[in-house]
């Protein structure tokens, strides 16, 4: 399976990573090589095999549905590139 430039552009968009037009051909080539390597998986007979969901058989623990932590707005905002009036600040989202 080979990835063309349009697909590379679409993948970069989905991943929210800006890739300059001029860099797309090289990216497409790299992604194609990796996918070719992965295609060995098509040799395996996986008929009737369940996809793995948990590597160690375990039942997830349950607990009471109660608040266990919180009330630390200042700590949560302390690393934000831009925080104002107790909120994360971002560029305008709605017109």
């Amino acid at each position, binding site marked *: 399976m080979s990835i063309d430039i349009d697909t590379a552009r679409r993948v970069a968009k989905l991943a*929210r990573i800006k890739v300059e037009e001029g860099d797309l051909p090289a990216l497409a080539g790299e992604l194609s090589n990796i996918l070719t390597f992965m295609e060995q998986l098509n040799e*395996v007979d996986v008929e009737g095999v369940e996809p793995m969901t948990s*590597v160690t058989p375990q039942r997830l*623990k349950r607990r009471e549905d109660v608040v266990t932590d919180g009330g630390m707005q200042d700590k949560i905002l302390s690393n934000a590139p831009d925080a104002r009036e107790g909120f994360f600040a971002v560029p305008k989202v709605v017109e």
Partner: protein
Amino acid sequence: MSDLNKLTIAAARDALRKGDVTAAELTEACVSAVEGAGKLNAFVHQTPEIALEQARAADARIKAGDAPAMCGIPLGIKDLFCTRGVASQAASGILEGFRPEYESTITQQLWDAGAVMLGKLNMDEFAMGSSNETSVYGNAVNPWKRQGDDTDLTPGGSSGGSASAVAADLCLAATGTDTGGSIRQPAAFTGIVGIKPTYGRCSRWGVVAFASSLDQAGPMTKTVRDAAIMLGAMSGHDPKDSTSADLAVPDFEAMLTGDIRGKRIGIPQEYRMEGMLAEIEKLWADGAAMLRGAGAEIVDISLPHTKYALPAYYVIAPAEASSNLARYDGVRYGHRAKLGQGDGITEMYEKTRAEGFGHEVQRRVMIGTYVLSAGFYDAYYNRARKVRTLIKRDFEEAFAKGIDAILTPATPSAAFGLGEMADADPVAMYLNDVFTVTVNLAGLPGISVPAGLDAQGLPLGLQLIGKPWEEGDLLNVAHVIEGAAGFVHKPAKWW
């Protein structure tokens, strides 16, 4: 006592308890070793004030007779672990300036046991790499050199700074993490011991996530005994990690009896790769002979899906990474790109991630995005998860036939030169993990033990793979190899 930084954890613990040395003296020796080792670029954030304060507290505890094994032991911490108030950036530009308000469960357990933090250690960005060349801090360097050759070598990756620091005696031990071989490969490249425990043995809480179903932290140490001691302090159930196992943690050190008589050790034929280096093949045979000499039975086994482990890994790990790394968006922490006139929130995400992530991380995020995208999810991601089931089944069948542990080489070669793989295909770099990655896919414990030198005088490691939750038995078999191989070589100091 001189050269206190060269002590093992076990020797330091005994000397501390006897009062022959103080934690403060031990810490000062390590702090000055770290300061003198800038050329290795292993420590990327040094915390000598925290270290000396913790050392004084440890001395008080030792004096009071309340001293767990790790009390007063100076450690290096991989940059992937969040440490309160201390830079924790996973060697990425996107976490520039990030100082967590919380402490990872594993490091908290180590500090509660009295251990001392010397600082944060270099690594591949987000633990994605096998040579420590993808780090925003620049390469970590292996303290070992080829005989008569001054080329700087890789300490391996992703826990390259951890491996370099322990091998160069900058600290007594270090934490590492292992998603596809990131503890075991660097340990093998630097002549130290590294164990990846069973998935769920150590809490992942507060450890920056790469591929959550594969990530496991573990100790990187100078000896197998030290690995047993430190693993005990790192292990245990944590309600904050839903995949952490609620199982009792045995006294791993007490299990190092050296008695492996009657144990059945499997040699998987599929690991005998085409083009395997003769010295790796010899090391492997020597390792089997050592175990046979100690009374174990060596049995040929088959793990038929081995060949498909790397391609399955390179679907599953990037898929999980693309999801985990979605959180780096320039909103809550770390880097945010400068925006142009009219740029909205989408441009903010795209520019921030393009500037903040390095090349290999971008490539893996995009591969992960692709294999999870509509139309390809079944063909790649679901197929890889089915193959993962088969890989795990291979091991289960071997263990069901009475195999106690499996012996393989740790890496396909000794450490290579920094930059030597620069022009190679990314897939060629991925091949470093060929012997280790199956263990992550199956969630098993695996350990790398130094077992010999190659023709150029570089360390080589053997890997042992154990049954789930049987780290104690695994460490005991590794202890036998360590004793029989008698690996005592150290790199000559040039840094």
